[in-house]
């Protein structure tokens, strides 16, 4: 094939002849692509939402299609924490500690009403939203959310990974804006 500009795909006119065969990328994008397609969730199953979390991993919804089927019960091996269920004040230190044990970069999905905002438990033993103790990336409403909603959340996390939204924030985690105050 001789490299006349007509042979090049649309949008690539004027670029080098070799670019037809060589795919170039930035290292950061390549790493993000790898991370995005192999999220290893840490199932922080605390209540009934965990049942839907298990349903998501089961063959019917099969999260292996998104590369996130390797649920790791050791925080050292996980990079996505799915907080599924009511976070009580007694459990909060453990959730915080497990989050701290996860290696960077890490993402958090807050699954369901209880984890996201306390839900219907407006009471003293329940943390009113897990984002009061750990930074949350994606919130999923529902009581409990359907497995499809959780898959939607995982797809949203993949989007975040791809955008590299967190890469810039890794150092600035301490300066993260506080959770939005509102009708809780």
């Amino acid at each position, binding site marked *: 094939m001789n490299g006349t500009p007509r042979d090049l795909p649309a949008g690539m006119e004027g670029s080098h002849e070799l670019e037809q065969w060589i795919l170039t990328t930035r290292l950061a994008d390549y790493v993000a692509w790898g991370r995005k397609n192999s999220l290893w969730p840490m199932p922080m199953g605390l209540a009934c939402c965990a049942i839907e979390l298990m349903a998501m991993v089961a*063959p*019917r*919804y*099969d999260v292996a*299609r998104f590369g996130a089927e390797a649920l790791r019960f050791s925080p050292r091996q996980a990079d996505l924490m799915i907080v599924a269920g009511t976070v009580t004040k007694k459990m909060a230190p453990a959730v915080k500690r497990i989050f701290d044990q996860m290696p960077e970069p890490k993402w958090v999905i807050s699954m369901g*009403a209880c984890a*996201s*905002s*306390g*839900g*219907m438990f*407006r009471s003293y033993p329940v943390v009113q*939203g897990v*984002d009061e103790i750990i930074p949350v*990336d*994606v*919130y*999923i*409403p*529902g*009581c409990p*959310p*359907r497995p*499809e*909603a959780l*898959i*939607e*959340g995982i*797809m*949203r996390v993949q989007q975040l990974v791809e955008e590299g939204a967190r890469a810039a924030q890794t150092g600035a985690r301490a300066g993260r804006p506080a*959770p*939005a105050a*509102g*009708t*809780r």
Partner: protein
Amino acid sequence: MPVSGKPVARPARPGLLEFTYLPSILKGMWITLRHMFRPKVTMQYPEQRWSLPDNYRGLPALVRDEEERVKCVACFLCEYVCPPKAIHIEAQEIQTGVEKGPRVFEINMLRCIMCGYCEEVCPEQAIFLTKEYTTVGLNRAEMIFPKEKLLEMGGIRPDPIKKWQRLTSKQGPSETAHEPVCAGRGTAR
């Protein structure tokens, strides 16, 4: 004391073949192989979706009637009945002069548990649970849905009772005709 039930016998010592674990491995592989030819159960989610029943309870939304009027009259019943107190309403006067309406109507979708009490309690049939169930949010503030968004989600639902027509048309003649029933109702209000 007599023994109740039948005790289980201890399994016999495995033979030489069992010690190689080959029969167990082959048995397991046979089960895996059989599953390869069974019908596939996976639902390819983003492309393929579950067909929802008519009474599915998803996120709540406000509806308008066929003349684009907000049906909600800010009676605060849904706010009162809501178990997680996800609804926040502020009332205002509206132009028709016979009812009030919501100035602020917010539902915190992260509090909402989709129980359907609001739909059940609403005397004006103004709030319904939609079939929306895959919404996710990136922060808490964006998951507090304002009135405009809720109305957009709910769309238009025809009102079989024609309440507005009755109330606004009766107001004109009742002032001249002085019907006792209407007068009584007027003073009672």
